[in-house]
């Protein structure tokens, strides 16, 4: 790893004030540190968020569930509040990495990284969550821009993520046997106003499938999307699976996620 400066500010404003060209915020480090080992990320300074209060924790705010950016996957998985209101999100986080990784990895870090195969973006986009930063609120539909790219401005810091509580939701993924990342992961959420379907792992960035959402809004059952397919042209093709295979998996995982949501 290349040398860098290290800061551990004690407030959100202090953290943001330290940000400049080629600095990185350090959350759990589960993606950033491996990238730095391979010189894929070479920050001149790390701004460690571990001493910033108020970034950690899970609370109910009105009808929504708000998860602090530094909350670990393990904390989300063991939260009674999340288990009761967003069980599909628990199903999602318990499949991230492995137990020791879940003890360090955070929701804010995962979202800021926007790895095309990460699980969290599917849950955040599928539930239509709101990403809260030091300066504004960003709708999930506007947040995930492209592979490893988000709507965050340079130096903008995620402080929390606010999830609406759906009537029902389900998340099912098909993992690569080697990397354990999803080849296709589909999050389905049913609200009074309609259905949202978000897919991760299959394309360069997480995406919604209106072709699934419309029929599911009329008939929330796996059979409703049996005849609907996604276009292989937009899928990834790599050593783990070709585009046609991934497109097929998206359909299968979506139907299983609907079945999961139906309980």
């Amino acid at each position, binding site marked *: 790893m290349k040398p860098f400066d290290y800061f551990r500010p004690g407030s959100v404003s202090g953290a943001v004030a330290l940000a400049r060209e080629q600095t990185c915020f350090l959350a759990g480090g589960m993606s950033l540190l491996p990238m730095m080992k391979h010189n894929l990320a070479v920050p001149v300074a790390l701004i*460690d968020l571990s001493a910033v209060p108020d970034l950690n924790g899970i609370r109910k705010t009105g009808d929504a569930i708000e998860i602090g950016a530094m909350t670990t996957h393990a904390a989300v998985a063991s939260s009674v509040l999340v288990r009761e209101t967003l069980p599909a999100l628990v199903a999602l986080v318990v499949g991230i990495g492995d137990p020791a990784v879940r003890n360090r990895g955070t929701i804010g870090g995962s979202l800021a990284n926007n790895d095309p195969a990460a699980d969290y973006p599917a849950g955040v986009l599928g539930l239509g969550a709101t990403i809260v930063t030091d300066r504004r609120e960003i709708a999930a539909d506007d947040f995930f821009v492209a592979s490893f790219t988000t709507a965050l401005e340079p130096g903008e810091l995620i402080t929390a993520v606010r999830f609406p509580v759906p009537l029902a939701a389900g998340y099912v993924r098909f993992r690569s046997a080697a990397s354990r990342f999803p080849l296709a992961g589909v999050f389905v959420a049913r609200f009074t106003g309609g259905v949202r379907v978000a897919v991760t792992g299959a394309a360069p960035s997480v995406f919604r499938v209106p072709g699934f959402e419309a029929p599911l809004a009329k008939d929330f059952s796996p059979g409703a999307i049996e005849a609907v397919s996604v276009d292989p042209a937009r899928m990834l093709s790599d050593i783990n699976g070709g585009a046609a295979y991934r497109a097929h998996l998206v359909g299968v995982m979506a139907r299983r996620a609907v079945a999961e949501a139906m309980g």
Partner: protein
Amino acid sequence: MKISVTLNGVAVQEDVEPHLLAVAWIRERRRLTGTHIGCDTTQCGACTILLDGVSVKSCTLLAVSLDGHAVTTIEGLAANGQDLHPMQAAFKENHGLQCGFCTPGMIMRAVDIAIHRPEADEAEIRRELEGNICRCTGYRNIVAAVFAGAQAMRAARDK
């Protein structure tokens, strides 16, 4: 940067470079070589330590992140450095190792399982060991050892 760490129960202070990994600090500076480096990519778990009682992979952790926290390595488990910890004893009794390279990480992860999921059955233990790889593939005895060790830790606690 100066870090203050409670390492295996002993308060330690040391100046470290920000880019020094926790596992390098433990092995090379503190000379506690029971914590192993297997894959160096957060996958194999040979470098697992307890950070404030919770298992983490020290190859994907900065030494500066240990500042102000308590670290337990495999060397810190045996009381007074003599009597084996119940989980170590269980690995010995159940022959939960072949070459032994993964064993320190396995045991640190197993202690976490025993503390946080004391009632874990075999299936749950297997799931909870997902991040620790044994390339001798001796998982059967490892799982038996974790089960027995968790029971022994529970019995010791209830005594």
